[in-house]
């Protein structure tokens, strides 16, 4: 067992974990932060995306011990009290989810994408950068629409389903 200290959503959290514990297990099982999901065994679906030191990463493909000393933001850390984060609000507004399983990962990926590209984000880039996030419900159209809306992109996506 190894002691880890990870700042999660702004609060310093300590725990003792087996070295093989994945970051996502630590978040869900030790801290009870079950907003971060696990959708695959192959690092491909993106349901588990969180931010580690400000960058989107797959928490199913990182050990908790690797994240010791880092700052982690999960989906639970985005809203400001009752007020949704703008990307969360845009997903609601544009119907960017159905069952919601992929949504935490989609939103964490979207926030990271918007931070890197800002309002220069265009539809092609959004679709390209959603490569590592799989949604089996929505067909992606409204997810793309929500992300572009949240980014304040000037061009509305031509292909989005109404």
């Amino acid at each position, binding site marked *: 067992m190894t002691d880890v200290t990870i700042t999660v959503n702004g609060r310093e959290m300590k725990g003792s974990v087996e*070295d093989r514990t994945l970051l996502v297990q630590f978040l869900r099982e030790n801290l009870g932060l079950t907003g971060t999901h696990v959708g695959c*065994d192959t690092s491909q679906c*993106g349901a588990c995306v969180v931010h580690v030191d400000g*960058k*989107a*990463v797959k928490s199913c493909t990182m*050990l908790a*011990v*690797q994240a010791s000393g880092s700052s982690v933001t999960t989906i639970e850390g985005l809203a400001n009290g009752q007020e949704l984060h703008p990307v969360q609000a845009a997903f609601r507004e544009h119907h960017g989810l159905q069952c919601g399983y992929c949504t935490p990962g989609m939103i964490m990926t979207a926030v990271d994408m918007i931070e890197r590209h800002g309002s220069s984000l265009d539809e092609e880039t959004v679709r390209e950068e959603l490569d590592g996030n799989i949604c089996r419900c929505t067909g992606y159209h409204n997810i793309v629409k929500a992300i572009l809306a949240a980014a304040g992109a000037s061009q509305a996506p031509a292909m989005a389903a109404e």
Partner: protein
Amino acid sequence: MYETSYHRPSSLAEATQLAAEKGDEAKYLSGGMTLIPTMKQRLAAPEALIDLRHVGELKGISVNGRSIRIGGGTTHAEVATNEEIKSVCPGFAALAGLIGDPAVRHMGTVGGSVANFDPAADYPAALLALGGTIHTDKREIPADEFFQGLFETALDEGEIVTAVSFDAPDQCAYEKFRNPASRYAMCGVFVAKRADGVKVGVTGAGASGAFRWSDGEQALSGNFAPEAVDGLTVPEGDMVSDIHGSSAYRANLVKVVTKRAVKKAHSH
């Protein structure tokens, strides 16, 4: 995942010493984007993991004129967005931006990718075509000698890839024909043109990993245009054959993707 023990050295010396102590039960852990999925599937079960992400000597990109050196611990995202690499060797930066997805690019490293030498990894195609050099804690190895076969490199046990380096060519480009499900290359081709000729590195298609397509190189050195390879045939016997495509399909892809890469090199 089987049990393991985690170690976090902060220097190259400390990392290699740990590796020497733990012997063949230890594995370096860099971005973990290959090793951790493999451990989760129980295809690898190292007793000790030596994390290289906190080793300062592996960090950093330096560009001097047209000479580029990229530390082994540099992430794909850092390569893809580096302004200096983008300006002197746009084909290489573009290749890094096509690896996996943004989350994979935030963690995965150049050193991990070349050390692992997956038969569909992207960097090896570029380093072969660029005549690159792989630097380790012990020596410098030309790419042509470093990449030896399926998941096989010239690395000795415990040897660390500290950097890769190359000179930017006059023109280059990478074209990747992706498997629609895994997004890895079914065939990826890097072409590099210099005054003394053209080199072509191919990944994803070859049965023993990335290789240089010498017939293509010869034809393109004479005429750096897509149609220069029209009359060539790629031997099927050297190609991968799997559920995603036969060896004949892949042999044809090598030609098609090379043509697209040449076209792209003219537009960079």
